[in-house]
């Protein structure tokens, strides 16, 4: 086990949620959610099905706008910003059901990830100016480097739809990393992976954290969460019921009854 929160005080919050609320019709999906995510941390978001994890995820990534409360990224409010603007700011994500660009090669997928960090437009694409060629080469090199970091550079020229599910997951992470994010959101990264793959994923996520990237993940695999998270936020029925280090959360009464208790009998 790691030593959670050892460096907590030396980090400023990268993401701050201030009493976020979101309702769909008459259903209050989220109510009064507040927490900080400190730079460089791995934070997990857990809770039983229907707790509002995915809704919260979609609020942070700009798919939904909160009804009330504010979301700050690096001190600046981001509530209501468009999904594609948030990538520019430094928030990248992966999807629960792996959404790759199936007709493109793995390398091209990762290169699309750099969309906001490159600037070639219609005109420069057609005229092929020297800087455009240089940018293209640099972009390719960077993509290959990231793929090597994730461990999938040998698959660069394979069509992404032909890859096995485990590789696709890693490719999606590589694609997200390619946008040089400061915050990476992972929606159930271990879903559909076997035990070996999950362990490798844990190692990779720690490697990503070591690069100074902050991670927020929604996950059901308790082993993985306890292994890699510095902090855990627990949601139940749209409200935050606990927050703390993995050890604190494990021994929390409310969590036991709402979540762990229910799944362990």
């Amino acid at each position, binding site marked *: 086990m790691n030593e959670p929160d050892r460096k907590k005080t030396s980090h400023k919050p990268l993401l701050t949620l201030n009493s976020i609320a979101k309702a769909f019709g008459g259903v209050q999906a989220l109510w009064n959610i507040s927490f900080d995510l400190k730079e460089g941390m791995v934070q997990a978001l857990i809770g039983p099905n229907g707790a509002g994890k995915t809704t919260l995820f979609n609020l942070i990534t700009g798919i939904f706008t909160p009804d009330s409360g504010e979301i700050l990224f690096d001190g600046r409010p981001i509530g209501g910003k468009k999904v594609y603007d948030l990538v520019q700011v430094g928030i990248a994500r992966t999807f629960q059901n792996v959404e790759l660009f199936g007709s493109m090669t793995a390398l091209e997928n990762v290169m699309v990830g750099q969309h906001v960090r*490159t600037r070639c437009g219609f005109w420069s694409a057609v005229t092929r100016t020297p800087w455009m060629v240089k940018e*293209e080469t640099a972009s390719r090199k960077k993509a290959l480097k990231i793929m090597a970091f994730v461990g999938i550079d040998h698959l660069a020229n394979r069509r992404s739809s032909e890859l096995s599910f485990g590789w696709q997951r890693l490719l999606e992470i590589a694609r997200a990393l390619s946008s040089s994010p400061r915050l990476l959101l992972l929606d159930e990264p271990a879903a559909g992976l076997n035990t070996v793959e999950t362990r490798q994923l844990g190692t990779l996520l720690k490697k990503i954290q070591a690069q100074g990237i902050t991670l927020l993940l929604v996950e059901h695999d308790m082993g993985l969460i306890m292994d890699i998270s510095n902090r855990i936020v627990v949601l139940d029925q749209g409200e935050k019921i606990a927050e703390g280090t993995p050890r604190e959360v494990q021994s929390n009464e409310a969590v036991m009854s709402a979540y762990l208790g229910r799944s362990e009998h």
Partner: protein
Amino acid sequence: MLKFLNRDRLSYAVFFIAIAIIGLSVENYYYVQLLTFIGINTILALGLNMLMGYAGQISLGHAAFYGLGAYTTAVLTVHYGFSPWLALPCAILLSMLVAFLVGLPTLKLSGYYLGMGTLGFGMIVHIVFREWSSMTGGSSGFIGIPPLEIGPVSFSQIRNFFYLVWLTVLISFIVSKRLIHSRIGRALRAIHDSENAARAMGINTRNMKLEIFVFSAGLSALAGFFYAHLVSFISPGTFSFIVSIKIVTMVVIGGMASVWGSLLGASLLTMLPEWLHAFSEFEMVVYGLILMLVMVLLPQGLTRGLLDIYERTRSKKDQP
């Protein structure tokens, strides 16, 4: 990448030589004219393929842009005495402007709804061509569009027109290929595969779709310009709903997301009716049957289908 670029350049060179050889060797006026029509249709199909094949956005109203190109150059040259070469950028820019204005609201739609939206737009433009008689000549058509010429070279000579059109096809291919193999092209294909994920990668999907729609309209207008000056007579029927569908068919039969597929699709759909004259009243039946057969046997279109067959036979040969 380098190897790939060279392969592209090689195919351009082969293409260029093929144009020269065909241009020099084909004597029959009728065939040269048919080949010129194929070239014009290739530009049309290519324009739609960039939108449909690569970005995955359907348009059932593309004949409108084709018609806008043709009618703009006709009106400007005949009514206002413009030189065709001055009318050309006007025709293209007007078509692109219309695409921009139409695209703003309609490209928010997707799937069937986008199809319906563009279909409606195509019909409106068709009605304008037919009813605005003082400008367009109404349903009886527009006559007397001047032939093209550059200095001493007159393109009323069909062979010269053939070269002009096919060199434009070559340039359009190069431009399109360059677009596809760039950051823009990757973004377009990303939108095609998953709009959701494309947005999550920071792609402004709305702007990107709008840009390719405008580009596509520009190519269609270019085709319309050539058509008007080649035939010197245009009428609303040439730009009706059926023609929009025909362009879609060219793209699908030739192969979506394939530049060369546009050429194959345009060739087949332009030549088929000519070959099938022999079947007289059964012409349309045979025509439909052939299209059905292609789709059943090669659902990915001619390009992908033929490539697959080629690769299959080659891998069979490789096995001892």
